[in-house]
């Protein structure tokens, strides 16, 4: 039975992620910063609008890779933290539980609510997000998009699988690859991501 996601979120949201007197926010082995969602939308969407389709895809691939690194390292830092060991690890009884816990843990960063729709152990994860910020803004500003714009959630979906089913950290990044198969920016009613093991 999957772990209690609400409980994970409740525990994780109590974490003291705060900046120090020098304005630096160090947590889980990474440096975090809080920024306006609209800032990210403006920067990325304005760049994409300046580029041809192929170049825009290249940029989004690079951004996917940046988020993959972000997710891979941050979630690893989280799952090896004392807080995780004390409060969340006791709820985890299988690798699948860990996937559910990591997905739930993502739901404290303010990026929209991600949840598991389907998990095939070691092979495939389908995650969905109903309220990602960017798709609605793309529709408002630019109309329907030719492909999904949620590289952030897409990369997160792959990073969970990399960490849980890939080779031991830090060598497992890129074991899985994720694709956004539906996106609200294209007119779909939900954003859906499928991460699958890369076939060699």
């Amino acid at each position, binding site marked *: 039975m999957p772990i209690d996601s609400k409980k994970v979120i409740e525990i994780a*949201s109590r974490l003291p992620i705060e900046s120090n007197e020098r304005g630096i926010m160090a947590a889980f082995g990474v440096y975090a*910063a809080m920024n306006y969602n609209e800032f990210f939308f403006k*920067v990325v969407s304005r760049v994409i609008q300046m580029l041809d389709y192929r170049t825009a895809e290249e940029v989004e691939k690079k951004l996917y890779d940046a*988020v993959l690194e972000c997710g891979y390292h941050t979630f690893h830092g989280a799952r090896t933290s004392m807080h995780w060991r004390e409060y969340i690890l006791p709820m985890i009884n299988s690798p699948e539980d860990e996937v559910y816990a990591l997905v739930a843990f993502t739901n404290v960063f303010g990026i929209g609510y991600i949840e598991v729709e389907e998990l095939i152990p070691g092979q495939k994860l389908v995650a969905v997000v109903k309220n990602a910020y960017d798709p609605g803004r793309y529709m408002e500003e630019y109309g329907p998009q030719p492909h999904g714009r949620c590289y952030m959630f897409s990369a997160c979906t792959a990073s969970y699988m990399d960490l849980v089913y890939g080779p031991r950290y830090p060598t497992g990044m890129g074991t899985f690859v994720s694709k956004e198969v539906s996106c609200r920016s294209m007119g779909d009613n939900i954003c859906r991501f499928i991460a699958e093991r890369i076939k060699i």
Partner: protein
Amino acid sequence: MLINFNPDLNILKLNGVMVSLHCHHYNCGLVNALEEMEGVDVREIIIQAAAEEFYVNFKNYMQQHLEDKTVQEKLRAAADLYRFMGFGRLNLSQLNELGGEACADSSYYVTGWLAKYGRRKTPICYLTCGFLSGILAAIYGGTVDKYRVEEKNCMITGHNCCEFVVLVREQCL
């Protein structure tokens, strides 16, 4: 600073505005990815987006919380906001309506970039330039593009602190 979190939607609001937390792998990776694209002036795009966001959001914050405060108190509140968001520590005391200089002895983008990529030869604190431009226009009045900000020295290139020069754009004088 007022933080509100909705756990059912994973929505985080700072003073009523949607924000999110990201690590240096993404924040610096974003800058790096865009800088690699030919023909994209990522510096200008980041400065403009940051100026717009800090302008409108700090203006609203002042209207709600700082209406009877002095300019120096508003500048301190802006520096507090910057520190709270995790961007570093800024001294804004030498700024006035005509611009001036600001300095930072701690910078998120310098710290994050050093951790991820090491040193570079050019300044990296684009967001800070936009922040300064936005909050000054909000405090002193005028359009969002009233001020032009240049990072004269940056810790990423080996200086002791990041120094920013702020000027009023000619057409705004």
